[in-house]
């Protein structure tokens, strides 16, 4: 070995680290107008999940979570080869809860999209926060018209990036009004909401359609969430001489109102009508016979198919109980639409990283067409509505039959466009 070889060897040893460090690949640029989420090969794909996880509507929130979990389970818990990390926050089923939950989620720049909410009221502010942050959000439960469109126009709370697979209940109130006016021949009606945009949307829709048909809204009252004493408002109903009370309330306010109404002789002949938020076994079990004769307007349940039965079996196998409602199916569809859109928007980089543009994801979500959902084919419109509007009016005759029995007693059906 001569001196020159020794020098070369020394130079090679000393320069090796610098040569090796020069081999690191540069990150790929992001051209998405809303920015990109880059996911490393070993990193999880983060999704926010904001639902009503506590309180009286936690059961609905739980159905949403389960729908997502079932959809994810079918993909073995992975999307595009990445495990999915769910960042879960409670909305408490109110606007400020939704806003704060969304703030927590969007604070993490790695979160790609949000699955939620349970309550439309929570979605109103959560959607604003989410949209401002450039994310997308899809719900399997929100149905308030205010969130997407009313009468073919953007609704007041519409925000870019918000979609849902629960049908817009823009038609639910009118369907109830038409049923009341045409089938029950009601001419004087009262509406009671809880100040939430969901219930307000329904009562507004009812009022407009009922008045349009020639009826009179003799009372448009509001109760507060957590109110227990419904007698004053029921007294007002009595005073108004309403023949029907449309009260699309959640539990427990709906329970209180029903039970206390049944105790008021002046309301013995008054028709009581609520909506899908009370089409739950827990409500039926709570009010029992008080619900007999009561009407409910709610989304038409999905048709029973083998695929749906298979999903129900998966539900039962996973959670060791029968699904209490069909809302988990909407959640399942919402989750799948989101997952498919992520797959379409994602770009596998040469560096092994996954690049997902936020605007690209939104575009993919809005481009969803004829998605083979468990609730039927789903096509998302420009306002974010993916489900067709189809509602049934149900009449409770036998509380012992539970939700299934109630759903089997459909007295009126409305499907938009049919």
């Amino acid at each position, binding site marked *: 070995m001569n001196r020159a070889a020794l020098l070369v060897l*020394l130079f090679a040893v000393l320069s090796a680290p610098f040569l090796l460090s020069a081999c690191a690949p540069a990150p790929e640029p992001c051209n998405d107008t809303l920015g990109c989420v880059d996911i490393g090969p070993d990193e999880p794909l983060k999704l926010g999940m904001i639902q009503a996880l506590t309180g009286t509507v936690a059961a609905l929130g739980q159905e949403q979570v389960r729908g997502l979990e079932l959809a994810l389970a079918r993909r073995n818990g992975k999307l595009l080869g990445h495990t999915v990390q769910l960042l879960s926050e409670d909305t408490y089923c*109110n606007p*400020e809860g939704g806003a704060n939950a969304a*703030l927590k989620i969007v604070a*993490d720049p790695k979160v790609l999209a949000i699955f939620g909410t349970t309550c439309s009221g929570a979605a109103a502010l959560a959607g604003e926060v989410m949209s401002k942050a450039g994310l997308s959000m899809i719900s399997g439960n929100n149905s308030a018209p205010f969130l997407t469109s009313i009468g073919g126009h953007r609704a007041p709370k519409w925000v870019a990036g918000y979609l849902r697979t629960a049908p817009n209940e823009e038609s639910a109130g009118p369907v109830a009004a038409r049923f009341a006016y045409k089938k029950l021949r009601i001419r004087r009606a009262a509406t009671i909401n809880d100040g939430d945009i969901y219930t307000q949307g329904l009562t507004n829709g009812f009022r407009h359609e009922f008045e349009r048909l020639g009826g009179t809204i003799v009372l448009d009252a*509001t*109760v*507060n969430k957590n109110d227990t004493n419904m007698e004053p*408002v029921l*007294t007002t109903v009595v005073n108004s001489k309403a023949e029907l009370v449309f009260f699309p309330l959640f539990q427990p306010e709906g329970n209180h109102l029903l039970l206390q109404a049944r105790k008021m002789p002046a309301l013995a002949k008054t028709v009581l009508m609520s909506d899908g938020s009370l089409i739950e076994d827990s409500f039926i079990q709570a009010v029992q016979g008080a619900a007999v004769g009561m009407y409910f307007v709610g989304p038409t349940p999905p048709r029973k198919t083998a695929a749906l039965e298979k999903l129900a079996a998966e539900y039962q196998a996973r959670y060791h109980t029968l699904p209490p409602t069909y809302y988990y199916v909407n959640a399942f569809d919402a989750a799948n639409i989101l997952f498919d859109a992520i797959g379409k928007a994602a770009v596998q980089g040469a560096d092994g990283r996954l690049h997902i543009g936020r605007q690209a994801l939104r575009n993919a979500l809005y481009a969803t067409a004829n998605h083979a959902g468990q609730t039927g084919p789903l096509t998302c419109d420009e306002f974010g509505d993916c489900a067709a509007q189809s509602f049934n009016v149900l009449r409770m005759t036998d509380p012992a039959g539970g939700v299934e029995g109630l759903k089997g007693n459909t007295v009126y059906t409305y499907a938009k466009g049919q």
Partner: protein
Amino acid sequence: MSRLETISRLWRKQSITIKFACAFSLLFALLVLEALVGYGALGVVLKAEAEILSSVEIRQRVFKMDGELEKARRMYRDFFLTYSEIGFAKAHSQHFLPAKAVISRVVALSDDLRKIVETSAVSVTLRERNKDIALYLSSAQRFGESFEQIVDLVTILAAPESGLLPQLEQLGGRLDDMLRDTREPYLLFLAMDRHRQEYLNSRQRPFLQMALNSGFNLEQALGAEPELTPARREKARKLLRDYLTVAGRIPDVDVKIRGLLNDFTLQAQAVDPISRDLKALAALEVDRARARINAVSRVATVAIVVTALIGLGFALVVAALIHATVTRKIVALTQAAGELRADGLEARPQAQAGDEISALAATFQGMVARMQDLVANLESKVDQRTQELAAANDKLEQVVRELDEKNQALEVTTRTDRLTGLANRRRLEEALQTEVLRARRYGKPFSVILLDIDHFKKINDQFGHQAGDNVLIAIAGLLTRTARETDVAGRYGGEEFLLVCPETVVQVVAALAERLRVEFTTTDFPLVGQVTSSFGVAEFIQGDSVESLVERADQALYRAKGSGRNCVEVDVGTAG
């Protein structure tokens, strides 16, 4: 053969250049390693210091941010506590506007904090908390927005005169005044007003609904009240409708306010743990960074000491190897050269195959062998030459001796009269010259005697030349025996003899001449019988030369010859 021996043999085979290159390369590598360890440790310490500084700054900012947010909350609380007393305008300027400014600072602080955490040298754990800071930022912004909304709502609800509550109060007062003198309506009014008050106390909507129901009943009662005139009844109805309208709006505003208050609560629930965690995490970061500095310092110290010790040990090993394979050989070579210088031609440095010194030792061995050969040849040649020189010297000495003898003989021959053995004329002249010079320089006297045998021709003629020569020889004998040791006697020519007497005045010399004359006269010369001689004596006088002195002695001799021979005549000049 063991691996160590293989390595050792391989090492010995390498040239000195390679050995030095290997040794110094490894030493250099150790130095580089030590430098890298030091550099690495310094880098870690600097990074940890940066983390500490960043963490401290983050902590300070969190404290400040938290303090500002708390300040905003206090102002928000003070606004609601004081607006009824100090008025909306004053509460607005004293609490609301400053609170907005504080919120803006909180927003700016949290935004700065987020950037600091993003860009500064903090741990991954703290950096991951940036999403919490982003939440803090958005919550602070939301707090500001909610604060404005709630102030607007409170303004709607409670602003003097224009607020719903003052309006309700005013309308209630007017209704009170109007219905005070009625019975049933007034009782219903009081019931309605009581429910209103119950609502305001409890903010439970059913109470207000009860108030509305009482209002409904009151309206019914107004129609049946006989005490009221139609105009007054209509006025009362209008007041009641206004009252019910205003009252009906209040719960909705309250609900919104309650929602915003709930919003504040949720914000606080979200934000408070963030600031608390950030402070704790920043403190933990500082502690962790300090611990890392200590750990790295310890490890670096140990690493540096270990590498230094290894380097030292390795230097000793290298020195030993260099000594064993280079220095010792050089020393052995030097000793061999020294022995060689000291005539130790038996010196033989070891010459192992391999390096340059071994090659030099081999060369040295060859050189010594060559020198031994040369020295051996030189001695034999010197002996031969010495013997030859000794023989030549003997011959030369012989020649010299012979030459000296010959020279001496020649000297005798050249300075002695061959017949008589006395000084010849040349010798006499040299003696005269010497004495003349001495007499001139020292003023010493000297004299000469010139004698001539009388009638010598007759002796030759009569008795033959051999007889004449015998006379001459006999006279020479007489002169030699009679003259003093310091005197020089010689044959001046033919039958003339000269006697040089140094440091002798003429009188003494004249006496000597006389004694010689007598001696001659009394001597019986073989074959010839009696022979006489005439003598001339002269003494040196200043100004004399050899020739003038001899001339004066010759004059005196001539006179003796003239005076009848066989006499001594003294030079006249001398005598006078």
